């Protein structure tokens, strides 16, 4: 099976407070380190596991600047067969639809049976997979948390409310957006990355892919982020400033008052 995984480089913000920059129009990115989006990493692992079960190739693609190579190398070290960087200045400022348009052009240059994306990026909108599928006119399933390959089709389950699973049969080729927790991604150490340090990563530009430049980039974006802001905390909780003991008393009083203690 020929599998394409669309991955993205995102700032790793889990352990550090995000601050706005001086101008207030962006977050302070200077101290960020970047890594592959978590859900995308699960998607790559899932692709590798499917390949190891049924054979084929896994290609990882990202739309980014040169920096995108960093995550592609990581995914190559994980075991992807190929990586591809799609990069062009005209892509800057693309919205979700723009990114899907670029990816569609890339997909059409190759032949893929299965396309995987992560369900959502930290700074994303859970949109590109569904859009790409619609553009390609492929069937799509989101929030996929298990995949089994069955004779030209897939059986996938989706994570729905209540911890339940919605089982679906889906024809190939298709696009799936992968939920975190679907597998246990393998570890990639520095050694793995060094071993693929010299593997060439082909870069495709807008003209290589025949992307209509009017359909991508900032000018084509219908959805634009104007600025970032830290949400006002004013309407938030009444913070208790007492000692630990006083706070505990107050909490119990409140629990009782709100009908919690019988």
């Amino acid at each position: 099976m020929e599998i394409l995984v669309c991955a993205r480089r995102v700032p790793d913000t889990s352990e550090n407070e995000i601050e706005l920059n001086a101008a207030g129009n962006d977050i302070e990115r200077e101290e960020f380190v970047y890594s592959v989006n978590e859900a995308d990493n699960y998607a790559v692992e899932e692709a590798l596991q499917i390949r190891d079960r049924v054979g084929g190739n896994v290609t990882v693609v990202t739309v980014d600047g040169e920096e995108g190579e960093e995550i592609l190398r990581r995914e190559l070290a994980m075991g992807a067969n190929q990586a591809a960087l799609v990069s062009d200045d005209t892509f800057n400022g693309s919205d979700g639809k723009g990114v899907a348009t670029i990816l569609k052009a890339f997909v059409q240059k190759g032949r893929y049976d299965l396309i995987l994306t992560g369900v959502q990026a930290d700074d994303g909108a859970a949109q590109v997979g569904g859009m790409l599928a619609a553009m390609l006119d492929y069937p799509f399933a989101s929030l996929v948390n298990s995949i089994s390959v069955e004779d030209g089709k897939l059986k996938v389950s989706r994570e729905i409310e209540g911890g339940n699973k919605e089982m679906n049969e889906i024809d190939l080729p298709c696009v799936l957006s992968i939920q975190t927790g679907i597998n246990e991604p393998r570890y990639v150490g520095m050694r793995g990355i060094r071993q693929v340090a010299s593997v060439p990563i082909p870069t495709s530009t807008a003209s290589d892919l025949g992307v209509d430049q009017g359909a991508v980039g900032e000018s084509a974006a219908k959805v634009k982020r104007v600025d970032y802001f830290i949400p006002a905390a004013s309407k938030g909780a009444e913070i208790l400033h007492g000692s630990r003991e006083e706070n505990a008393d107050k909490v119990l009083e409140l629990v009782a008052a709100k009908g919690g203690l019988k």
Partner: protein
Amino acid sequence: MPRIFAYIVHRGGAVDDSAAELVAAAKKIDATVAPTAILTGSGPELETACSAIGSGFGEIWKVANAALAYANAELVRQALVRILPAGSIVLVNHDHFGIDLAPGLSIKLNSAFASDVLAIDGVEGNSLKLVRQEFGGQVNSHVHCDISSGAVLNIRPGAFKPLASLPTAGAVVDKSSEVGTLVARRRYLETIVAEAGDVDITKHSVLVSIGRGIQEKDNVGLAEELAEVLGAAVSCSRPVVDAKWMAKSRQVGSSGKTVKPKVYLACGISGAFQHLAGIKGSPFLIAINKNPKAPIFQVADVGIVDDLLEFLPELTKKARELRGVAAK
């Protein structure tokens, strides 16, 4: 102003709570019009749902089709594409179905798409002004959405408070005949219901809910002790389940259970919306978190900035004293 539609989710004849929230969201776009509800499905359940729809909607578009008996996003999309007028604004609840349906729908309608909309600040010309959340709720962003060729908006559950005293819903319009044959390349097979856990967290009036802040499995006991004294149950957020510290049946959130307690003690929970989506019925929310900037403090009624692992034992001790006294 383009016409505003809301796709309404219903189960077993009952309309989902999100319907009223979609009305509230629609009013933020244009307060003067009543949005059109769209319900798809088949059989008597669909009829019941159409008649049960709450106030605030204008027309109710009914799409009955045997293929739509289960809301398969691919088929719903085909149906919607055939009945929606060009340039429409379509509101969809941002849940597992909305994520499945909306992005592709926007492509097929050739309209803009905005996901997980938290707030709407009205319209300026062709520009719809929205608020979204990023990086797990640490920062928000202002987003401008060009609605000149319509838009599909996924509305965050719980972000728009239902409005009071709205006019009764309008007439049901049967759109079934415009839909035609629907062909699925993705076929719904069945729903596998999660195994029932030892404790049914949906039935408790007090929940001691733990998140990543509990740090490790051994500390879960601190919450269990408190819950025991309070006569409460312990629930948790997704990371706790992912780490296998608690069973899936204890998870509150969009991918877990929906709970309606009277009091909700969020212990070491950051407050991601996926978690908050599972808390219904506006319980009294008490948040305990080390990080004063945790988003949970924005939605909680009362907050305590303290180390959970220190505070919980103190609370348990106090609760014991209280219960002990009460027992005499």
